[in-house]
């Protein structure tokens, strides 16, 4: 049984390193949009991977005793659904508040379409 604890602990370590990458990316990237992007990808992966590791550490409780696996699966599905959605809503709010894009930006199709009235800015209902 010890091998499962080793695998789980290493997965937990990998997930926490991914969270560290998210934090460094937050400090390094030049504008809001790149920060949100890096932070969302790395932190979602880090959290999912860490919780998988925690479930594997508790392998002896999978079929008997307390319920670790079910709760962890619920939590993983929950993180998968909610984390991209909340970042997407934030990024759209930032875009329509007209925060400046970084100078490295090559194209901005959305600004062109907004200016030529192909789409209206979202109305608040």
């Amino acid at each position, binding site marked *: 049984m010890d091998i499962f604890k080793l695998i789980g602990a290493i997965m937990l370590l990998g997930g926490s390193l*991914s969270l560290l*990458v998210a934090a*460094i*990316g937050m400090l*390094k*990237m*030049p*504008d809001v*949009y*790149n920060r*949100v*992007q*890096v932070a*969302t*990808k*790395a932190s*979602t*992966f880090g959290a*999912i991977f860490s919780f998988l590791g925690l479930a594997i550490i508790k392998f002896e409780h999978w079929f008997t005793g307390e*319920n670790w*696996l*079910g*709760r962890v*699966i*619920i939590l993983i599905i929950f993180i*998968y*659904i909610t984390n*991209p*959605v909340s*970042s*997407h809503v934030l*990024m*759209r709010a930032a*875009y329509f508040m007209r925060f400046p*894009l*970084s100078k*490295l*930006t*090559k*194209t*901005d*199709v*959305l*600004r062109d*379409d907004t200016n030529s009235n192909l*789409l209206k800015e*979202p109305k608040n209902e």
Partner: protein
Amino acid sequence: MKAKNLIVSFSVLMIAWLLLNWTLDPLIVAIGIGLSLLISVLFCSKCTVFEGIKLGPKAFAYTFVYILVFIRELIKANMDVTKRVLTPGLNIEPGIVKIKTNLKSKMARLILANSITLTPGTFTIHVEGEYFYIHWISTEAVDIEEATQKIANTFENILKELYE
């Protein structure tokens, strides 16, 4: 399709109940069936969230294909992000491009947008009808068709099997 809505929402609630309780005790299962039936009849008899979902063995098999492809893309995305963050200097050329999707149902579009957000270098900013506006950290294509080919086609082909 009222019956299909009820069946799908009932099974989602029932699976969540069983995962939280983690037992097959008849009393617990009976309480779960009662509660799930009550909630799905009360709240989801008119909802349109599960419209256009396909049921059957083929869709069931493609769910696992989706999960495997998604895990592969998630790991690739993190390799990419780690490489970009840890190499010194900024090697990014961000841009916002537009892609077009053929999926009709709302749930399929939500899953497609979520998957695009978690795959290498791309992030959905805005959804307008059948067009998605994507923030791409290394802009490789500006043209609509080429960008669609590069970003969305992998998941779109799988989601076509899952939703009408």
